[in-house]
């Protein structure tokens, strides 16, 4: 890209290359910022640094064997990706999942969501220059990872859901630890609220930064906490309750303003709601099997198109699968939330100061491997 020979007034501008190795892009996102002094005139994201051809891989292996791949797309919401993909195949093959397995999926998914939000919380404040909160959120997050490690066998890129259930039942120890964790995190929220959310510097850095409207969200397909920060109460767990979400009592936190501060608060309050779901699910947890009987080893999906959407930590996650009748999908398309959320950056960050670009990108909560797949 030749940027030195602008003929017009742009010759006074210069291009700052932010990333792919930059402390606040969290991974390998690269953004070209055309700048005039401290102000950003034209931010352009450049993608493709961690593209691993996951969707293409899906066309060459049996549908069941694609499960580990989906976990590697969003390393922070792997269980939710697992759940969504398992639901897709179950829907395609017409397999009934035992109730207990559904509950376990919800419990682990919600813990996974809390874990993702905790990491975002710390990392976002790190972007704003506060070094300490991330150590506290990692401390909390560690409990979730330990719990999930015991039941799933890994700490980030889980492969826990199976077609027809989950691979391993949870035991009393897990339930005990989950309850203890709920208590612990609830007792920590007031501390976070006092020390971070109540801090005037934090508020001034986020308020009125990167304001956007529901219309912009509709144009770019922005979903998840970012959409809810504009006042639209759209959460797939409520809007189209999948799995057993209709059996729980929880709220969808929303804010009016649609700026970084609103998104920040929506995510923070979502953690409390997720805790409520986990608590109720633990109370109501039914007995029984965790795997459906008679799931065929070689899963042949009937010819046709299948679709399944779930609410990932960052927004709506959709799988679209075209089957030609064999056990290998003809085509898999994954609609990941971060990709759509990133696409508002050129619109949103125009005319901002560079510090606000960092604030804005942090509020989007991007996971780069999910964008590049």
């Amino acid at each position, binding site marked *: 890209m030749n940027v030195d020979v602008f003929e017009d007034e742009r010759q006074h501008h*210069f291009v*700052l*290359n932010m990333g792919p190795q*930059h*402390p*606040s892009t969290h991974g390998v996102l690269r953004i070209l910022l055309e700048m005039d002094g*401290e102000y950003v005139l034209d931010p352009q994201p450049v993608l493709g640094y961690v593209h691993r051809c996951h969707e293409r891989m899906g066309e060459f292996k049996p549908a069941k064997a694609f499960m580990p791949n989906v976990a590697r797309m969003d390393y922070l919401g792997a269980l939710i990706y697992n759940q969504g993909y398992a639901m897709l195949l179950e829907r395609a093959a017409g397999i009934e999942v035992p109730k207990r397995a559904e509950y376990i999926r919800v419990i682990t998914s919600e813990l996974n969501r809390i874990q993702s939000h905790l990491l975002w919380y710390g990392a976002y*404040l*790190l*972007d*704003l*220059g*506060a*070094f*300490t909160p991330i*150590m*506290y959120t990692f*401390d909390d997050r560690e409990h979730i990872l330990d719990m999930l490690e015991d039941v799933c066998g890994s700490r980030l890129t889980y492969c826990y859901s199976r077609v027809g259930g989950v691979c391993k039942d949870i035991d009393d120890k897990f339930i005990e630890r989950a309850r203890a964790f709920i208590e612990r995190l609830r007792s920590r929220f007031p501390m976070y609220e006092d020390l971070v959310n109540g*801090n005037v*510097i*934090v508020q*001034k*850095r986020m308020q009125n930064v990167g304001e956007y409207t529901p219309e912009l969200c509709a144009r770019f397909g922005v979903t998840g906490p970012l959409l809810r920060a504009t006042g639209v109460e759209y959460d797939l767990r409520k809007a189209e309750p999948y799995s057993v979400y209709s059996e729980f009592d929880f709220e969808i936190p929303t804010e009016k303003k649609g700026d970084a501060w609103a998104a920040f608060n929506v995510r923070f309050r979502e953690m409390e709601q997720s805790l409520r779901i986990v608590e109720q699910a633990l109370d109501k947890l039914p007995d029984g099997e965790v795997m459906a009987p008679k799931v065929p080893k070689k899963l042949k999906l009937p010819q046709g198109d299948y679709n399944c959407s779930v609410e990932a930590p960052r927004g709506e996650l959709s799988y679209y699968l075209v089957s030609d009748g064999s056990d290998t999908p003809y085509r898999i398309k994954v609609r990941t939330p971060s990709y759509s959320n990133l696409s508002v950056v050129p619109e949103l960050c125009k005319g901002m*100061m*560079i*510090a*606000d670009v*960092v604030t804005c990108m942090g509020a989007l909560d991007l996971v780069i491997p999910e964008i590049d797949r």
Partner: protein
Amino acid sequence: MAVIGAAVLIFGNALVMGYMERKLAGHYQRRTGPMEVGFHGILQLVADGIKLMAKQLIIPAKADKPLFMLAPILSFAPVFLPLLVIPFSDRIQAFDLNVGLLFMLAIASVNVLAVLMGGWASNNKYSMFGSFRAVAQSIAYEIPMLLSLLAIVFMTNTFSLRGVMEAQNVWFIFLQPVAFLIYLVCMVAETNRAPFDLPEAESELTAGFHTEYSGMGFSLFMMAEYTHMLIASCIATVFFLGGSSGFPLPYFEYTGIIWFLLKAYAFMFFLVWIRWTFPRTRFDQLMNLCWKYLLPFSLVNLLITVVVVKL
């Protein structure tokens, strides 16, 4: 003799501060900080110093080589001078200049030039950003800083630091609380420490003006920063906390330095404390704070002081 003393103080301060900062940061963050080298990691900074000295000096291909080499030296070399006029106790002071305060502030602002040189010569956009911010910030904050100190100069009728120290029957922090608060904020901004560490804002500018510096170049900048913290703390001690005054110890004309350093390091502790607690402000917010709040308040404070002194 005085220069040797100053050199000992500078390097000793860099070691103590480096260790204190890392250890305190560790404890704020629920970890232990350095533990491996020596008892509870006391020798960590010595090991780091050796490592930094042994490191290769990397000069970017298109950097302005002479300026690039000169900048860290220019940043570090003058920091000896302000220490010479500080009255650490009744007898420990190299020179008692009658314009001591002006001398200290003048020397301390040479650092801005060094930062600008370093950022410009690095031929790196992030460095350039950092140094531009440093210049704007330092120049802006020097004004309310000086105005808040001037209020005390009007009360004592002297620029000499010894004169100010001896004039305090009551510590000036009680007589001039507004000036003290303004000075405290300006001190953080002048030393480029968080939450006003815009010139090196890590998450925006990678490392700001010293992005391209490695080895000794980097460590000279770091030592200069720590020494500037010490100097700013010493000024605060002399002007607001009565310098070396305190409970009398034997040979007090010498041992007063103990009280002096305790007070100065209390300020240093404060600087470390807020660094690891607060997030960074934005650049326009930083400037607003200075021009819209600190400057008017310090002017009003100065005016009130003048009126009261005249009466």
